[in-house]
Structures are given as C-alpha cells and as structure tokens.
C-alpha cells in the first residue's frame, strides 16, 4: 500500500535549515493500523503531510497503491488525494457555514458526483456513524466528538483506501476521544488502512503497530519486518 524509501525533507527557518525528515524508510500494508508517535518537532506531522500528498519530499521515493507519486503533477496528486486518501484533523476543519450534511457532502460535490448518489451516500454514512439526527446542525451546534465524527464521515465518504488522522483526539475529552477512536478502528476493521499521528501513549497503544520518531528519523518500529509488504520490497 505505502512504500517510502530514503525520504528527506528539510525546511529553511530564518537562516537555518531544519532537517524535518531524514532517511525515512517505511512500508505499510493494506488494512494496517499504525500509530506514528513522537514528541512535537520530531517530524511526524511532516511525514503525514508527505504521505497525504500535501507536501513533497526533497529526495527519496514514495509509492502509494503502486503509483510512483513523485512523478505526478499537481493536478494528478490532487486527484490521488481525492480517490485514495481521507484526512482527519485535530481541529476538525469543518466549514462553519455548512451543515453536517453539507460538510460530509463536500468531497463528492467537488468530485462531481451526481446529486442522487450524493444524498444516498451521505445519509448512509451519517447513519453508520450515528449522526443522522445531527445532519441539519451546523458545526457550532455540535459537540467536539460529534464534530470529529462528522469530519471522519467526510474523510471516508469517497471510500478512500488510506485514512490519515493527525491527533484526532487532541481537542477532545477522554470519553469523546474514545468514541472517535472506536469509530476509526471500526473503519479499519472494515479494511481501511489507518495511520494515526499522536503523542498520547494511550492512543498509540491501541494501534497494532507503532512507529516512534525523534529528530526526523524513525527510531523504533515494533511492526517492521513482519507482513507481506516488506518481503515484497525489492
């Protein structure tokens, strides 16, 4: 599903170059549940942005679902995001003027899906996530947990193969956070590849595989070396 080789990324901050990612090699199988952990500034967000095709590495190679992503144009990468990747953010990033229903509908609106199909898919996913009675509410009328579940509905309504969650429980209390994690894990059990970036060890411990980062490098990976993907790496 995902294969990273020798990924390097550095930023210029003032006069200094910050090495955000160094020599990242990573393979993730279809359907895995992976937690990327580390203190802030360890490069885990940068890694997530590169995995989500929002950012490009300075060097290295990245295959996503068999596609060499570094050769894609801006338009092709946008298309790959649309078809393959769902994002869940710490701050939800719901559009405040739109209702829960409209927020979930948005990816399909942008993709040009027919209205009848849009309606059916939004209603089904809201029902699955127990949000049917909140469809007409705007984000400011929803609780934090509900907002994040609307965001998850939006991230998965296009049926992506990879779900990237950046501190999905960071703005939630314990109960709401658990509920959100349950939702994500249920989607993972359905076959969706799930990557969660977190600095919360409780959240990280729930994942089947954990990667620890420090200073832009992977320092521990308790799942590497196992699974079919690694063996398939040339």
């Amino acid at each position, binding site marked *: 599903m995902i294969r990273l080789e020798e990924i390097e990324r550095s930023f210029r901050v003032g006069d200094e170059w910050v090495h955000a990612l160094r020599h990242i090699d990573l393979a993730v199988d279809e359907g895995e549940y992976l937690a990327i952990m580390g203190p802030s500034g360890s490069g885990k967000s940068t890694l997530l942005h590169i995995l989500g095709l*929002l950012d490009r590495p300075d060097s290295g190679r990245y295959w996503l679902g068999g596609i060499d992503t570094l050769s894609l144009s801006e338009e092709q990468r*946008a*298309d790959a995001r*649309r078809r393959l990747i769902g994002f869940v953010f710490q701050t939800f*990033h719901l559009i405040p003027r*739109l209702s829960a229903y409209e927020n979930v509908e948005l990816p399909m*609106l*942008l*993709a040009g899906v027919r209205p009848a199909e849009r309606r059916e898919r939004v209603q089904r996913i809201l029902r699955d996530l127990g949000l049917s009675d909140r469809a007409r509410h705007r984000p400011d009328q929803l609780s934090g947990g509900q907002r994040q579940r609307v965001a998850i509905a939006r991230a998965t309504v296009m049926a992506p193969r990879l779900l990237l969650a950046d501190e999905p429980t960071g703005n939630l209390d314990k109960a709401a956070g658990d509920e959100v994690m349950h939702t994500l894990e249920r989607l993972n059990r359905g076959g969706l590849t799930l990557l969660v970036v977190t600095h919360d060890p409780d959240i990280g411990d729930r994942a089947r595989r954990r990667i620890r980062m420090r200073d832009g490098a992977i320092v521990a990976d308790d799942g590497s070396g196992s699974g079919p993907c690694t063996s398939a790496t040339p």
Partner: protein
Amino acid sequence: MHIGDTLRFSGHALRSGRTRTWLMLLAMAIGVGSVVVLTALGEGARRYVTDQFAAIGSHLLIVLPGRVETTGTAPPLVGGTPRDLTLADAQALRRSSHIRLLAPLVVGSAPVSHRQLERETLILGSTAELEPVRNLHLARGRFLPAGDPERGAAVTVIGARLKKALFGNRRALGRWLRIGDRRFRVIGVLQPMGESLGANISEVAIIPVASAQSLFNTHGLFRILVQARDSDSIPQARRDIVDIIRQRHDGEEDITVITQDALLDTFDRIFRALTYTVSGIAAISLSVAGILIMNVMLVSVSRRTAEIGLLKALGSPQREILGLFLAEAGILSAGGAVLGGLVGLAGVGLLDWLFPDFPLAVPAWSLTGAVILALAMGILFGLIPARRAARLDPVQALR
C-alpha cells in the same frame, strides 16, 4: 465539480459574509446605475436638441446675408458690408426646381398694444409660406394671405401667449392691434407650442413682410427660409441658391447657406460625444467597484485560508479553487450589474416623471455595455485573489 454546484457553493460563501457582500453589490450597482442614468441624460439632451431642430420644419435651408463661413483666405481689405438680401432675391430663388417653398423673413422688435395693454414683442415679417415652412399650426382664424409679397396688408397672426397677454380669454380675431405706430387686424392665433431654438413662437406677432420692411424701415431681409423638395435635393437646392444670388449680386458670393441637416448633424455629433464622455467617466466608477471587490476578496481569502487548505486536502486542484473564487466574483458583479441596471432604470423613470418634457432614453448599448463591463471588471479584479487562493500551500493553509 459541476458548474451548478460551483455557483451554489460560492453563493453560500457569499451569503455567510452578508455585510461585505452587500457592500460589494452596492458598489457595483452604483457604478452600473450611474452609467445608465448619465447616458440616459446625455441621450436625452441629444434628442431634445434634435427634436427642436426637427420642429422648425423639414428639409430646411437658411439663407443669411453676408459670408460668415471661414474660407481660409485673408479678409478682403475693401468691400466691407455685404449686400442686402432683398425680396426680389427671394422671389428669384423660385426659379430653382429643387425648391418647394420659401419664406423671406424680416425680424424686429416693437411694442404691441391693445387698449391699455402693451408689450414689447418680437415681430416676424414674412409670407403665407412661412406656415408650412416653419411647421406652424393655427388655433383660430387663418394665416397671412397669399399674394404679392411686395404689398403689405395691415393684418397679423399672433402667438398664443401674446394673445393671452393682450386679450385674456376674450376673442382676439378681428380686433385691431397697434404695432409700433401702425394698426393691424388680428386674423389668426397660433397654437401654443414650446420653445423652438430660443425664439418662443408663442410670443411673436407675424405680419406681412412688406409691412415689416416699412415698419422697421429696412430694405434687406433678415434671412430666407427655404424648403427643398426632399432631402435628396438639399445639396442641389443649395447650389442653385448660391448660383442665383451670385448672378444677382454681380458675381459675388456674399451669402451663407446653412442646411438644417448639417446643423442637426453637428449637434448630433456634439451630443453623442458628450454622452460617450459622460458614460466613460461613469465607467471609471465601475473600475473602482472592481478594486473594492478585489480588496474585499483578498481579505476573504486570508480569512478562509483553512477552508482553502481543506479543499486542497479533499482533492481540489488549483484550477477548481480558482474557479470557486472567480465564481464568487462573477456572482457579485452579475448581481451588482442587475441591481445597478434596475436602480439606473428606476432613476431614469423618476427623472422622466419629474421632467416629462425632457425626452430621456436609455440607449441599449449603455445598458449592455455597463453590464458587460461590470462582469469584466469583477472577474478581472477577482482573478488576483482567486489566484492567491489557488496557489496557497495546503500544509501552511491547514496549520
């Protein structure tokens, strides 16, 4: 993304920022409205003047004594005053087959009195043909009798207002008036009509040309009004007039012939140019509205950075985001244009109601031009903020 969805999404975004949306609509509406109102005023002025000219008659040529046109040569050292135009000159013009009617004109001012009432009045001395040539209409009685113009009868036709001033509501026909030191019998009263080239035809007294010549003790004519057979024969009539008068004046071309059409053309051109200028100035306000749209949309782009980042994360390529923001600019300028068109038409309607005599009209080119310009301005100035939005780095935008 479908075009309908794009417009709906952008319209939704505009509705959420109600104040700025209304402000931008207002700016566009004022721009478009002022173009419409100002061109209507310019066009109205043009029509007013051409209507006035048309009202003095049709296919008219005006013959003036003396040469007032610039010829480019130095003025003659000797010669001085030109020869008078005489009644005989006027009669001679009848030889031309291109001339249908002609009316010699003597103009002067004299006190007109009836009993104790007296009024200083413009006196026109002319012949029976003045009636068709100048397009005059009688309310009562008849016009000057046809006959030898050299013989002046003591009769007069008076304007409606002069009749009112001297006789009030009493009957004027058949009464005697005193004009200067002579007595004239009123044989006709003109229909009330408006202003015509400054001379208010309602306040004149018209007498036979020979009577006017002796009243003002003049031999020459003020001018000769000539009506050509039709509009095609105007140039030939003009040549004939010049030829005939030159023969009679010992080969000297000492008259000026003004054609009504040329005069009309000149005024038409002047007022058209004026209308274009005024609407051009008004169009500048449209570009000001465009700049306002640009500014407000730049603010909106920076306030909606996270939303733009989200759209990118959801797979919108740059051109789609460009399209969304251009759609906002397009909706604003289209809405402003429609609103402005309505405001402009309402303004013109109001002016029309306030000044019913002024022939206001909104030319089609100004309405369509203003709307197209408003759209162009909105989209042109919307392009800069839209490009800024499209080029945002999604990682920065989502932070």
